């Protein structure tokens, strides 16, 4: 990947399109480009929303301190959590059953399909409503 200050990349996933990494010198007119902005840091302070649903967080990143604002219901915010213990079992919001196998790829394994997820591997970030059994 391109040099990045973070070790986490938000990846587009689409059943119809490819999203191939590119760089500004390679972009030409006529192309369709997805631009993606991201920031990550430790939360220094939290301001709860008023009527608009927008939270304010001040973040300390590797080389900056700044304020971001967002409405979590729009799906733009993720929180970092430690991995569970090897073999921990879960049930997701769609009824699918999962286990964390603690493999180097860090993926969860679905062993019983639900209404959304089929059997197979998935990133934790893709699985909604995961609760330990």
């Amino acid at each position: 990947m391109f040099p990045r200050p973070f070790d986490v990349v938000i990846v587009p996933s689409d059943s119809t399109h490819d999203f191939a990494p590119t760089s500004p010198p390679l972009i030409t007119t006529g192309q369709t480009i997805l631009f993606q902005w991201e920031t990550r840091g430790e939360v220094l302070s939290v301001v709860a929303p008023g009527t608009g649903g927008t939270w304010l967080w001040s973040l300390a990143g590797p080389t900056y301190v700044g304020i971001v604002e967002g409405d979590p219901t729009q799906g733009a915010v993720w929180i970092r959590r430690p991995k569970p213990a090897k073999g921990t079992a879960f049930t997701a919001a769609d009824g699918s059953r999962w286990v964390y196998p603690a493999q180097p790829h860090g993926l969860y394994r679905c062993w019983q399909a639900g209404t959304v997820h089929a059997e197979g591997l998935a990133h934790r970030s893709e699985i909604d409503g995961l609760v330990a059994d």
Partner: protein
Amino acid sequence: MTELIDDPDWDWIPVTDGSVVEVGDTILFGFSGQWDIASIDTVPNGAGGTTYTFSDGVTPVMVDWPPLTTPPLYTRSQYVVTDHPPVGTEITLSDGSLWVFAASKTYRCIVGGSTYPAGTVLTRALMVP
């Protein structure tokens, strides 16, 4: 749909209720948009690189390249959006690896290179150019 790459030590969990975020947590905030590039302007950025301004005729996007040594609050990445190729299409990456597009909408590495071993399965977005 957007996914995050999990690493062996940490999960990244979508936040739907802002009240779960507390001081001391590490969070990631991201957003994206798609542009049909109609024009491109370039000017030196004074830091030894170039500021590219891409526009769809309505909203410009400015990107410094190479990325500035001291990153701004937000980092930016960019992806070319294209239709999936036919199943069975082969592509070669800069590391010398050979990949085939599979019915699962992912690419399978069939000949390893200096970065990827044979058998690796990835979406296009995760593969080096």
